[in-house]
């Protein structure tokens, strides 16, 4: 009994080790990406493969890896051979630049801060909006509970937090002090901090906890598909934060693998009409004004501020708010 089993295991191990070598196409690119970009790249990759086949006459294999973005860049820094990274926060790409894996001026390599599409934070409220929530300011009212992912540990939570902070700064007499007070009030009203964006959605929609959910605009569409359109309302606040999704070529890896040409083309194509339309179809705001106009019905006009404008970039926003001892910790009176 024991021997055949061991032989079988050995054979399986050999097969597993040998398989990737056999199935390799001419070129293979690995795109290391954040968690919820799965759908976007599932649609985008065939578009690029088709484009590259006609343009360069080369068939290309595209591999995806999705997980929490900070975890992902750490894996890349530790040696995961990603040709490109497609992230949801500049901090994560910046970390790779610090490690010398990505060009120092990665944000200038592609248009629009190297972010092919954007999104923004909106509020989801219960059907009929029973608590009359119209703007971020309403979340500080007594008896209003907001659901959001943990602002220290998740991209979604950080953008929600910065949206609240930026909103407070833009009110009459707004200052860092008034913003700290306002954000603290909202957060202390929160019944919990979800471990991730999807779990926040589940808590709000399925477990029916809280009066408002702060999340990405593109999530609202997914919620509609999952839970039905009549179940909630989307509230566009007076002003919100512009979420950018930076992409970059991992210089060290493409030099080693000789895949620079393909990797750069893969990212460049995100800005093509096809790439931009794909973004719009996934409810991400395209950079291309014409495509944006075409899909205007699903992207109501909203005033936004970028993290660069309002906070002087992630390099400043991150330590000021999310590092230990930052404004989030102060809101809970801890170090």
């Amino acid at each position, binding site marked *: 009994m024991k021997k055949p089993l061991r032989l079988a295991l050995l054979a399986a191990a050999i097969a597993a080790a040998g398989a990737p070598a056999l199935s390799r196409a001419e070129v293979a690119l690995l795109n290391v990406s954040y968690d919820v970009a799965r759908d976007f790249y599932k649609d985008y990759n065939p578009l690029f493969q088709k484009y590259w086949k006609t343009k360069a006459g080369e068939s290309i294999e595209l591999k995806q890896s999705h997980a929490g973005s900070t975890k992902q860049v750490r894996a890349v820094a530790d040696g995961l051979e990603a040709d490109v990274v497609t992230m949801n926060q500049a901090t994560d790409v910046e970390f790779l630049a610090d490690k010398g894996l990505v060009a120092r001026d990665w944000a200038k390599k592609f248009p629009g801060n190297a972010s092919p599409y954007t999104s923004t934070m909106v509020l989801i409220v219960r059907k009929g909006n029973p608590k009359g929530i119209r703007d971020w300011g309403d979340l500080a009212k007594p008896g209003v509970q907001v659901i959001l992912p943990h602002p220290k540990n998740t991209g979604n939570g950080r953008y929600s937090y910065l949206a609240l902070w930026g909103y407070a700064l833009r009110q009459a007499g707004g200052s860092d002090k008034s913003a700290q007070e306002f954000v603290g009030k909202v957060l202390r009203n929160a019944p919990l901090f979800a471990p991730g964006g999807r779990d926040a959605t*589940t808590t709000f929609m399925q477990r029916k906890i809280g009066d408002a959910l702060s999340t990405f605009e593109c999530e609202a569409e997914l919620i509609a598909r999952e839970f039905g359109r009549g179940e909630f309302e989307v509230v566009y606040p007076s002003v919100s934060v512009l979420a950018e999704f930076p992409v970059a070529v991992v210089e060290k890896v493409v030099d080693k693998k000789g895949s620079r040409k393909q990797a750069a083309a893969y990212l460049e194509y995100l800005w093509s009409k096809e790439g931009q339309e794909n973004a719009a179809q996934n409810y991400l705001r395209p950079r291309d004004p014409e495509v944006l106009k075409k899909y205007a019905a699903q992207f109501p006009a909203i005033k936004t501020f970028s993290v660069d404008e309002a906070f002087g970039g992630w390099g400043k926003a991150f330590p000021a708010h999310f590092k230990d001892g930052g404004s989030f910790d102060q809101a809970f009176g801890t170090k």
Partner: protein
Amino acid sequence: MRRANVLPGFRLSLGYTLVYLSLLVLIPLGGLVLKGASLSAAQFLDIAGSERALASYRVTFGASLAAAAINAVFGLVVAWVLVRYEFPFRRQIDALVDLPFALPTAVAGITLATLYSGNGWIGRFLEPAGLKVAFTPLGIVVALTFIGLPFVVRTLQPVIEDIESEAEEAAASLGATRAQTFVRVIFPALFPALLTGFTLAFSRAIGEYGSVIFIAGNMPLVSEITPLLIISKLDQYDLVGATVLATVMLAISFVLLLAINGLQWWAARRHSGEADAPPEPARPVLPPDVAYRPA
């Protein structure tokens, strides 16, 4: 004075054991301590003793102890019932005990959070009674109890099987009441294994992350577990800060496990001492360390 052993290859297997333990346990843990040692004592204490860290130790160790204690009591009942009684679907129910091992912890956490939240199957009865479970520290205890259950049951089962019912019959014939039989005959025999199960469930609970974060609520100072703070530090690319917290957890766990082992050793000695008294050496063989054996 080498004792003859049925199996040859002592050197080979000892070498293998040492290499294996070094690669998998000692080197990673050594690296952890080394990384933390790059800080001065004051810096180390500052991170390890911050208000949030202290609150998280209380939550983590408190909930883990509570969960392991609950498992010790109810795990004993489950193990006893599964071994001593015949009833329909016993094997199927026995298999259920292993589910917490097999289920991905995140799935367990999400399921428990849904069940125990205000509109969940269980939470809808508890919340009107004023008992909030999901997204409170109590939720953490529930998740940790779930994941720890098999450790106690599976440790106790073989030992209960080994207790001969003659011992109970003898006790009864000598005039012991049922309570006396349990307290003086059965429980001492089970106690070392019960402690082992408790220890396993407890240590498993301390490090648990996946299931807890979905039901904890993760509010600073209230329901944040230490592993979450570690992840939070890693998200800030603060590797050193994360290793400090990990080292503290390791140290506390080590001291607690040592204490429990000591207790176990004492209990095993005491039990065997008592059992040695009668001339007839008919006591069940109880190794002081009953290894975990899945049924």
